[in-house]
C-alpha cells in the first residue's frame, strides 16, 4: 500500500480499540446508496520505477528549445544552491507558519524577503506573496478602490499592460462593480498615450507598467504625477529584475507610486510551463492595513529575544471572514523562499549585471534581426530586454519554421493586438550566447529568403 504503513496486525488491533468490526464499518454514517464503487477511470497503480520511466519518456519527448520568448516569463540562470535548499524537507513540507515558535525558519525567510522587495521597489512594506503577477495586479486594483477615499470604482488600465494581466483583473473585479477603462498607446513609441489619458480624467487608480508589455519604457514620472494631481492612486506593475537597473517605483515622480506589484518569476523561479510562480506586492506604509495576504512582523519572545510572527491578521479571511481584504489563504511561500535565496546569492551587483547582460543580448539580437531585409523595429524609444519586430512574412509561418529548427522565435502579438498582426515580441536574456543569436538570425534569413525567393542558395535546414 503506497505510503500507508499499517500492517494487518495494526489494522486488527486498531479496529479492536475503536470497537469497529471492519474498515467499512468506519463509514457507517455515510448513506449507503451514495457508495461509488471502483474508480474505473483511474489507472492502476505504478511503482516509483515505472512512473519514473513514464515521466522521463514524456519529458524527453518535449525536449529543449533555444527560446527567445519573454512576454512576462523569463529564462534566467538559477544557482544550483537555490532549489537544493528550497527542497529541503524542512522548507518543502512545512505548513503555513501559524505556530510561529515552530516556524522561525520560514518566518525569518519571509521577513528577509519583505525587506528585499521593499528596497527593490523603493516602498515601505511588502506582503509575503500572492499567486502570480496577474492576480497580484487584480488584488492591487481592489486594494486601490478600497483605499481611495473618492469612492470611484473606475481604474485606468493602459493597453500596454500584459494582455493576460488585463484579462485576470477583469475576471477578478467585474463582480464588484469595478470598471476598467482602457488607455490606448501611441503607435509611434509603444507607450501610453498621454493625450488619451487626459481625456479619461481622474479615477480610483492608474496602472503603470514598467517596462510595458512591448518592452518599451513608459514615462513613469509623468504618469505617476498625472495620477497624483487627480487624487488617483498610482499602481506600478514591474519586472523585479529590471529594478536592479531602473528607477524604483517608490521614487517615480514627486511622490512615488502607492502600490507596486509584479511577477516574481525572474527571481529564481524556473519557467515550468507557467507555474508555480509568485506575485509580489509592496506599498506605502499608510496602505498596509488595506493589503491582502500574509505579512510577517518582527517581535520578541517572553525572554525578550527577537523572533518573527504573522501579523495584522485581522485583515485576513480566517479572522474577518466576509469582511476580509481578500479571500487569499494559501500563497506561494516556497517560491518566495527561492527568490530570497536567489537575491541573496546574486546581491545588488549580480542582479544588476544579469539585467544589463539580458538587455545587451536583446539589443544585439534586435540589431542582427533588423539588419535582414524584411525585418523592422516597430517602436522608437528606449526599451528594456524585450522589443517588437515586424516581419514581411506571416508570423505564424515564421514561428513554425523557426520551431522546426529548435528555435522559439518569440511571441506573436496579433492575437492580442490585431494592428500588430505582423509583429513578434522578442527577448534574449543573459542565458543566450552570440552563437544563439546568430543561429536565430541565420534561420530567420533563410525563412524570409525562401519565402521571397531572394536567396535560393541558402540551405533549407541548417540545424536539427
Amino acid at each position: 500500500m503506497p505510503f500507508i504503513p499499517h500492517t494487518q496486525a495494526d489494522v486488527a488491533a486498531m479496529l479492536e480499540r475503536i470497537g469497529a468490526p471492519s474498515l467499512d464499518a468506519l463509514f457507517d454514517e455515510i448513506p449507503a446508496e451514495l457508495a461509488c464503487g471502483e474508480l474505473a477511470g483511474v489507472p492502476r497503480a505504478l511503482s516509483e520505477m515505472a512512473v519514473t520511466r513514464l515521466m522521463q519518456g514524456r519529458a524527453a519527448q518535449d525536449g529543449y528549445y533555444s527560446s527567445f520568448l519573454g512576454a512576462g516569463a523569463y529564462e534566467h540562470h538559477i544557482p544550483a544552491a537555490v532549489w537544493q535548499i528550497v527542497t529541503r524537507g524542512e522548507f518543502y513540507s512545512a505548513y503555513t507558519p501559524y505556530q510561529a515558535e515552530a516556524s522561525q525558519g520560514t518566518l525569518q525567510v519571509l521577513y528577509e524577503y519583505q525587506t528585499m522587495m521593499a528596497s527593490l521597489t523603493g516602498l515601505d512594506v511588502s506582503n509575503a506573496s500572492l499567486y502570480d503577477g496577474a492576480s497580484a495586479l487584480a488584488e492591487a486594483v481592489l486594494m486601490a478602490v478600497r483605499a481611495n477615499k473618492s469612492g470611484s470604482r473606475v481604474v485606468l488600465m493602459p493597453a500596454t499592460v500584459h494582455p493576460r494581466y488585463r484579462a485576470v483583473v477583469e475576471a477578478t473585479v467585474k463582480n464588484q462593480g469595478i470598471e476598467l477603462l482602457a488607455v490606448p498607446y501611441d503607435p509611434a513609441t509603444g507607450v501610453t498615450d498621454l493625450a488619451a489619458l487626459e481625456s479619461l480624467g481622474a479615477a480610483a487608480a492608474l496602472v503603470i507598467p514598467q517596462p510595458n508589455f512591448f518592452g518599451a519604457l513608459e514615462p513613469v514620472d509623468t504618469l505617476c504625477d498625472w495620477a497624483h494631481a487627480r487624487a488617483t492612486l498610482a499602481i506600478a506593475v514591474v519586472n523585479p529584475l529590471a529594478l536592479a537597473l531602473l528607477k524604483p517605483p517608490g521614487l517615480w515622480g514627486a511622490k512615488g507610486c502607492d502600490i507596486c506589484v509584479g511577477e516574481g518569476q525572474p527571481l529564481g523561479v524556473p519557467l515550468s510551463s507557467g507555474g508555480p510562480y509568485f506575485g509580489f506586492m509592496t506599498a506605502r506604509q499608510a496602505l498596509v492595513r488595506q493589503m491582502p495576504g500574509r505579512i510577517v512582523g518582527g517581535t520578541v519572545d517572553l525572554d525578550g529575544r527577537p523572533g518573527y510572527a504573522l501579523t495584522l491578521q485581522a485583515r485576513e479571511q480566517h479572522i474577518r471572514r466576509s469582511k476580509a481584504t481578500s479571500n487569499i489563504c494559501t500563497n506561494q511561500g516556497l517560491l518566495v523562499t527561492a527568490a530570497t535565496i536567489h537575491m541573496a546569492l546574486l546581491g545588488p551587483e549580480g542582479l544588476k549585471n544579469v539585467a544589463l547582460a539580458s538587455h545587451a543580448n536583446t539589443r544585439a539580437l534586435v540589431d542582427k534581426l533588423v539588419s535582414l531585409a524584411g525585418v523592422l523595429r516597430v517602436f522608437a524609444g528606449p526599451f528594456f530586454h524585450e522589443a517588437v519586430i515586424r516581419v514581411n512574412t506571416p508570423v505564424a509561418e515564421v514561428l513554425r519554421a523557426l520551431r522546426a529548427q529548435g528555435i522559439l522565435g518569440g511571441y506573436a502579438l496579433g492575437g492580442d493586438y490585431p494592428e500588430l498582426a505582423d509583429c513578434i515580441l522578442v527577448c534574449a536574456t543573459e542565458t543566450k550566447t552570440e552563437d544563439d543569436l546568430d543561429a536565430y538570425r541565420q534561420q530567420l534569413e533563410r525563412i524570409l529568403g525562401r519565402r521571397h525567393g531572394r536567396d535560393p542558395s541558402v540551405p533549407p535546414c541548417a540545424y536539427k
Partner: protein
Amino acid sequence: MLIFEHTQPGRRAHAQAPIDAPGAPDLPAELLRQLPPLLPQASELDVVRHYTRLSQKNFSIDTQFYPLGSCTMKYNPRACNTLAMLPQLLARHPLADAETGQGFLVCLHELQEMLKEITGMAAVSMAPMAGAHGEFAGVAMIRAYHDARGDSARREIIVPDAAHGTNPATASMCGYTVREIPTDRQGNVDLNALKASVGPHTAGLMLTNPSTLGVFEKSIVAIQKIVHEAGGLSYYDGANLNAILGRVRPGDMGFDVIHMNLHKTFSTPHGGGGPGAGPVGVSERLRPFLPIPYVLEDRGAYRWAEEDDCPRSIGRMSAFGGNMGVLLRAWVYARMLGGRGMRRVAEFATLNANYLAAELRRSGFDLAFPERRASHEFIVTLKKLKDATGVSAMDFAKRLLDYGFHAPTTYFPMLVPECLLIEPSETESRETLDAFVAAMVQVLEEARMQPEMVKGAPHTLPVRRLDDVKAARELNLTWKPG
C-alpha cells in the same frame, strides 16, 4: 542573525552572475536607479549556510508529526518532486506552442480526467492556484450561471457557521452577501434554519463535507435538494476530500461545483504556505463557465482551451494557466496510488482518526461529538481544563511543540470552545499515534500540576512564546541597517 548582517561590501557569489556587464547607454538617465537595493553582499557559502540553518528552525512533515486539522499534512512523496523537476519540464516556456509540450500536456490531461472520475463531475479545470482561488472560480461560475439566465435577484450565498473563513470571504469577493446558518448539536447543518433561509434571493450554498467538525453530513442529499428547489446552486468545498476519496463522490450527491485542494488530498507540499492548486469540477450546466485554460484532447493531440474555445468562461485566473509544477506532482501521486490506492487513503485516514479519537477519549479527553463517528479528523475540547486550571487550548498546543509534535489546529471551528481539531492522515503509523497520545496525556498532567509552566511553553524551541500584540502594534515589517 539576518542575511543582511552577513554583508561585507564588495563580497559576492562570483559564479552566479556576469562579473562584468556591458553598460546600457541607450537607457535615459532619468529612468535609471541611483542607489543599489538593500540586498546581501555575501559569499555562496555564507548564503547556503544561513538558509540551511534557518530551515533547521522549522517543524515539517519530514521531521515531525503534524496532526493539523483540516490541513491534511500527509507525507509528500519525494518522487513527485524529483519527477516534476525534470530539466525539460522546468525549462519549458508557458507561451511555447502546444506541439512543444505534448508530453507535459498528456500528464495534465490524465490528471484532469482522473479528477473528474474521483469527484463524479462533468468537467474539470485546473486553472485555480489554491483552494480559495478555486472557491472564487466556483462562486463566480454560480454567478455567471444566474446572470446568463437573467436571474439577477439572487444575491445571497448561504454558509454554515462551521465553514472555513475563505467561504464567506469568497462570496464577498464575488459581490454576494453572506447568510450564515447554524449547526445543530450533532454537528449537522440545521435543516430548519436552511429551509427558512432559502428563497428567490438564494444564489447558492457553500458546504464543506465532511464538515470542519469532523463529521459527515448525514442529510447531504436533502440539503442539496433544498437549495436546488429554491433555484440556488450547490457548492461542495472539497477541503476534506481525503476523508471520502474513492468511497463517495460529490457529483453523485448532486452538487454543481467542487474545488479540490491538491496540496491536501493529493499530497503536494505545503511549502511553508504554498504553492497549492485548487482545481474545480462542475456539473453539466456550469461547464460553459469553467475558468480557462484547461486541457483539450483532439485525436491524441493536446492543447489549452482558450478564450475562443469557451466564450462564456468566467475568464482567466492567472497569466500563465496555473501552478503547473504542483499539478505534475499531483499527477505522479495519483499514478502511484491508482484507483484502489485512493480508496485506501480514505480508509486509513479514517482508521487513524477514529483510533486516535478512541485512545484520547480513553485517556480522559473530551470529544466534541463523542456519539458521532469521526471522519478523517475530530475535535477535542479543553474547556473543562481551561475552567479548572486556566490552561488554554493555545497553551496546550504550545507545550506539545516541546514534545516534538506540531500542534493540532486551535480555535477552529470557532463554535467549539477551547478546541483542538486533530487530523492524523493515513501516512502515520500506529506507533506515532501512540506516542502522540502519550504526549497529550503528559501535557494534561502538567496542566493540572504545573499550569504556569504550560502557560509559558514552548521551552525548548528556538524562541519562546512570541508577543503577537507587539508585532501588530509596533509594526516592524522590514529590516533597517543600524
